């Protein structure tokens, strides 16, 4: 891995607002003057499939939109099973992870055809593999901020608070404000973002 390249994966389940989150993080990066490439897997985005955004910040040559296996530096997970899945495939000994522990059950689990692994085992495995792992109760925090669907912004807030990207909060604020012209929506998203900042700080201090 080249030091002039940061590989970030935002992962979750279709409908969780993955793309919006990656747009905000990338927008902040552009404002910092970095080159950005994002590869997104959707089409299934609204339909319960696994969704992953590869976000790559580079200072040298432009890179392709996909991160090679084992080369993710950071993972923002909206769902524990997806976080583990992505960490196993794309993580390495230095990967840092922040994730929402609320499970979303695949239909094969609901229909009894397969089993969702024990949550505690998932948490333990993520902790074991990641260099740093932080749990942020994003759905709960989003609910408190006004809408449980804003958990994506809570997680973006958590990533911002981690400072793993070394982007100032101001850059994120600008990126969010530019995306939402409707003041009501902008305020909700900023509230959720700020809740994520607090959530990360509390979790990290534990």
């Amino acid at each position: 891995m080249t030091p002039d390249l940061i590989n970030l994966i935002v992962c979750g389940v279709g409908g969780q607002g993955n793309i919006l989150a990656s747009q905000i993080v990338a927008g902040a990066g552009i404002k910092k003057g970095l080159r950005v490439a994002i590869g997104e897997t959707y089409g299934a985005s609204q339909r319960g499939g696994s969704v992953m955004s590869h976000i790559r910040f580079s200072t040298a040559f432009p890179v392709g939109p996909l991160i090679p296996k084992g080369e993710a530096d950071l993972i923002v997970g909206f769902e524990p099973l997806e976080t583990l899945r992505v960490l196993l495939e794309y993580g390495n000994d230095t990967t840092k992870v922040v994730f929402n522990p609320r499970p979303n059950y695949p239909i094969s689990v609901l229909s009894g055809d397969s089993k969702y692994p024990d949550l505690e085992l998932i948490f333990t495995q993520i902790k074991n593999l990641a260099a740093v792992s932080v749990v942020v109760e994003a759905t709960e925090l989003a609910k408190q901020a006004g809408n449980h669907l804003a958990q994506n912004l809570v997680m973006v807030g958590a990533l911002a608070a981690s400072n793993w990207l070394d982007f100032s909060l101001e850059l994120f604020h600008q990126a969010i404000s530019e995306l939402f012209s409707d003041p009501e929506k902008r305020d909700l998203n900023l509230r959720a973002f700020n809740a994520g900042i607090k959530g990360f700080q509390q979790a990290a201090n534990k």
Partner: protein
Amino acid sequence: MNPVFLKESGKTVLMMGNEAIARGAIEAGVDFTASYPGSPSSEIQETLAQAAKVFGHHAEWSVNEKVAFEACCGASFAGMRSLTSMKQNGLNVVSDVLNTVNLSGTKGGIVLVVADDPGGHSSTNEMDSRLHAKLAELPLLEPSTPAEAKEMIKYAFELSERVKLPVLVRSVTRVSHARGDVKLGEIQTRSRKPAMGFLDRFIGHPLVHPILHLRFNQAKAEFEKSPFNAYLGPENAETVIVASGPSAAYAIEAVHNLGLDDQAGVLKIGTGWPLPEQLVIKHLARAKQVLVFEEVDPFLEDNLKVVMAGAVFQGIAVPKIFGKRGGQIKGPRGAGIGEMSPDIVYDSLAGILGARRPERSEKFLAAGKQAAEWKLPGREWAFCAGCPHRASFWVIKTALKEDDREGVLIGDIGCYSMGVSKTGYNLSRTLQCMGSGIGFANGLGNLAGFHQPVIAIAGDSTFFHSCLPGLVNAKYNGAKMVFIVLDNSGTAMTGFQPHPGTGKNALGQQVEPVSIEKVCAGIGLTVQAVDPFEFEQALKILEDALETDQLRVLVFRHKCALIEGRERKEDQPRVIIDQEICLGDACGCNRFCSRVFACPALIWDNIKQKAAIDEVVCTRCGVCLKICPKGAIKLEQPLKKKAAKK
């Protein structure tokens, strides 16, 4: 403001590939745009439709890709610049006119953007559209990044006007749905006046085939000097990697990360067809071995081999060419199957050059084994919570069972394509292309000795796209079937684009809707509409229709849950489960709601061993109230009755 519309030339903004393509058209001063949505191309026309209000060009959602392209040809014939965009399947629909308008030629710049979907993230195939360019003898460009896509679009208009041919720009998912930094350019002011002069005649005929060849060769000559082709690496490299599209970026990164910068060069080809022969020979003549990376078919690889075979006559030694034909370059599912990825590039370089990445750590290898034991459940696609298709498939499933004549469901293309999988109770027996369902049903419904009832389905947008000829044929030839239009009020699969039935156009303006019922009635068909959420009613209507053994049309009409979700009021009562009443997995139920009906919002409470609702997922549609055998699923409070109108 959408950064795509900014006039600040020179500014760098984040853009999706499809937005960059739209921006390229805007910078080129496009006059006319028409498309039919399809992943991964839809955002191109969506952006152009929004931009139409700012820049004044025409933007429409056409009923299908062929009409869209023909409309663009019309604009071109009158000297205007036009652009159409589509997914790979759409190009097949266009194919007929493409292979005649190539002979007749065009006038104003006309660009056909086709966004391929290698790996089929949201498609029924992973066809390589580049072969269409070869078939129609038309020039084709292949962008590798969003930024390059924008520049290529601008160039494509100019080239089209010089060679008087439509120019194809072939994008792929990892360009169209990628995002990247894009530098804004000047926007050309639109100033053309449309006119068809006396000599503006566009006649396709084999007599003018020689003219096509002249024009084709003119494009080829331009491509020899095109800046979209570039070589990166040492002169006289023994190993040359030839790549197109996003594969070029993967190759450059892999060569760099493996420390091969001094040994291997990368020749990026942006002008996919026709190949710049001299450029190819120049770089390959000195190489000992050549690796070709591209998506999906070995198109570039084959064409390179043809060029190098010709070079033999110039006394040039042909290097070893490694690619998909020889199976040296292949993904996990085989050569020429699926997307290209950085990992395939790494693996191929390891296999051919012996350059390897470091192994993963013991900890990760052990965890991988552990996970394999856990069998992490995959996430199969499913209809969204509250999706009317789940209700429709439930009704169809019940009707076919109760009818008890082994009736078959013939599928089509849309969200309801998932009818082939568990979420649609594995009901659909076919999955091909837009409008094919009713076509197949024409055969089955007129087959002597075939006694199984036939149901064909199509969505509202698909109905207008390509079901009408099949429906007229069924009426004319007396095919027996029940044709159900699953009308969810929009082109849901691709992001709710409007269509003739919605009463809105691409710009969001109100237009007179084309009524599905009236169209069917005009054909002389009996048609009946019902809300699939009214299970009993819909079931009876469908079963009665099946028992007529005649051609019947039904419209199952209920808005897409995602549209409805946006309109949902906060005070809509929550759906709850009375766990005291719920039978759970006892005899008489065994998780009928969560296991069989299988809405993603109906989950299982492991502690109480009863059903539960995932409030984050539930849309409060309430359809599951009708499923529970015990009436344990309830609305939290009774719906407030509206005050009687005075």
